[in-house]
């Protein structure tokens, strides 16, 4: 096998079909960028889930003087109410699910509020007695929040039970939907990339039909005839894949680490290392799809 011949043919084919080759590069570039972005989002969701689900607690808000009358007809929760809730959390029905719990009084709640809304003028207007006394319950398994919610909702002196996980689930489902949308767009574009590759290969083969005819006549092996076309498709897709890999790395380097991580310092974002580990996967997907599309289309062309 003479490699010089093969690469000469590949070079000629790429030049002859330049506009088609450029469109293959662009379509694989864009589609694989979407694939990479979707993968980043999924990894980000995974990381955030681990981090936040670990910290998510169920809050049992007790009635305060400012609570709405329909939830708290008896007014502010009494000491009896607090001790009965404490007893209930410790008894044999609930304690298997509870990792730990603590009581937060109104002054502590104000301190936490002021901490959380440090730069917000709202802290000037909020006083301790407007806030709820709260039992914070940390569960052994964060998915068991419904057990606490059911046990305490409607109990006298309890204004509301809130599973923090339900807030997180909303955020995660939005992120999840975004990544699914990216995958959807990516698959449509990958499909068109495949069609584009097979059209280009067929066109390339057609423009070399005389040579192909002679090669078949004199007994060149099928592999030898097909190889330049397969390499042609793979090279074009490989360029697009490398660009897509670069884009994913750039997104993490400049947007996630450079911007998001600076503005949200306490969030654990995907790292550059993770992005770099995606590059070979993206490259592999691009090259494998192009190889399959090229092989199938040149084989079909030669059979016809």
């Amino acid at each position: 096998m003479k490699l010089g011949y093969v690469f000469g043919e590949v070079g000629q084919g790429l030049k002859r079909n330049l506009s088609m080759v450029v469109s293959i590069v662009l379509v694989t570039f864009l589609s694989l960028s979407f694939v990479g972005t979707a993968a980043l989002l999924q990894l980000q969701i995974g990381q955030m889930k681990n981090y936040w689900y670990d910290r998510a607690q169920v809050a049992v808000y007790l009635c305060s003087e400012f609570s709405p009358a329909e939830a708290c007809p008896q007014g502010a929760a009494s000491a009896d109410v607090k001790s009965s809730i404490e007893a209930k959390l410790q008894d044999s029905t609930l304690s298997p699910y509870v990792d730990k719990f603590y009581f937060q009084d109104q002054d502590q709640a104000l301190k936490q509020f002021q901490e959380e809304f440090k730069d917000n003028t709202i802290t000037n207007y909020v006083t301790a007695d407007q806030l709820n006394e709260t039992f914070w319950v940390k569960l052994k398994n964060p998915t068991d929040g419904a057990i606490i919610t059911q046990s305490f909702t409607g109990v006298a002196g309890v204004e509301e039970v809130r599973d923090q996980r339900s807030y997180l689930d909303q955020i995660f489902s939005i992120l999840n939907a975004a990544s699914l949308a990216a995958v959807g767009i990516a698959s449509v574009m990958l499909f068109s990339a495949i069609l584009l590759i097979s059209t280009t290969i067929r066109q390339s083969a057609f423009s070399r039909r005389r040579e192909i005819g002679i090669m078949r006549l004199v007994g060149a092996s099928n592999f030898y005839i097909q190889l330049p076309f397969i390499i042609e498709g793979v090279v074009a897709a490989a360029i697009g894949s490398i660009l897509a890999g670069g884009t994913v790395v750039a997104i993490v380097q400049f947007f996630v680490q450079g911007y998001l991580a600076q503005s949200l310092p306490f969030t654990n974002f995907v790292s550059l290392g993770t992005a770099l580990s995606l590059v070979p996967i993206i490259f592999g997907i691009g090259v494998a799809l192009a190889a399959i599309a090229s092989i199938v289309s040149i084989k079909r062309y030669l059979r016809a």
Partner: protein
Amino acid sequence: MISIEKVSKTYKGASRAALDSVSIEIEKGDFVFLVGASGSGKSSLLRMMLREDVPSKGSIFVLGENLISIPARKVPYFRRNIGMVFQDFRLLPNKTVFQNVAFCLEVIGKSPAFVAEAVPSVLKLVGLEGKQDRYPNELSGGEQQRVALARAIVNKPQLLLADEPTGNLDPATSQEIVNLLERISAAGTTIVMATHDRGIVDRMQRRVVVLKDGQIVSDDRGVGYEKAEEAR
């Protein structure tokens, strides 16, 4: 060398068979003319021998290969033992005479050293010395057919198939090409040539197989075109 038995071929959508129960034996070193009108099945038969096509019925053995059952990946290696020339030459217009002949050696993996030696010697054999750097459009029809012939025999095939090789040439040039075929035959290559050319068939007095409507109507040795036609 070639053993064809009761081969029939019906192409899709065609009302009648292109080949209808054709049987023929061709020995090593034979020089056989296939004659008959257009559409009589000459080209179909040649295509079968090259395994460009597979019969609908019957059996065909060429160079010891069963062409019905040969696996697709072995077909290229089978074809390396067969040369073929056509009426329309089928040269690559963007390659020189030398490159046209060299191409068919390169694509079957012959070494540059082999190519550098084999091509000039085969060009000398077909009488194209000094023209190796010309392009096909700078050559006469006869010269182009010599290039095609050089390409067909450069790999020293055991069998040479020729599909109306003189169809586009004037009588004098045709005779030169046939003389060349005769020399190739004398060197031991089996030749099967489909032709319309009565003059050539009459002069050569070789084995003549007459096809009509896909059937062999006569098969005689040492006769001319007319005789063969009359014999049926």
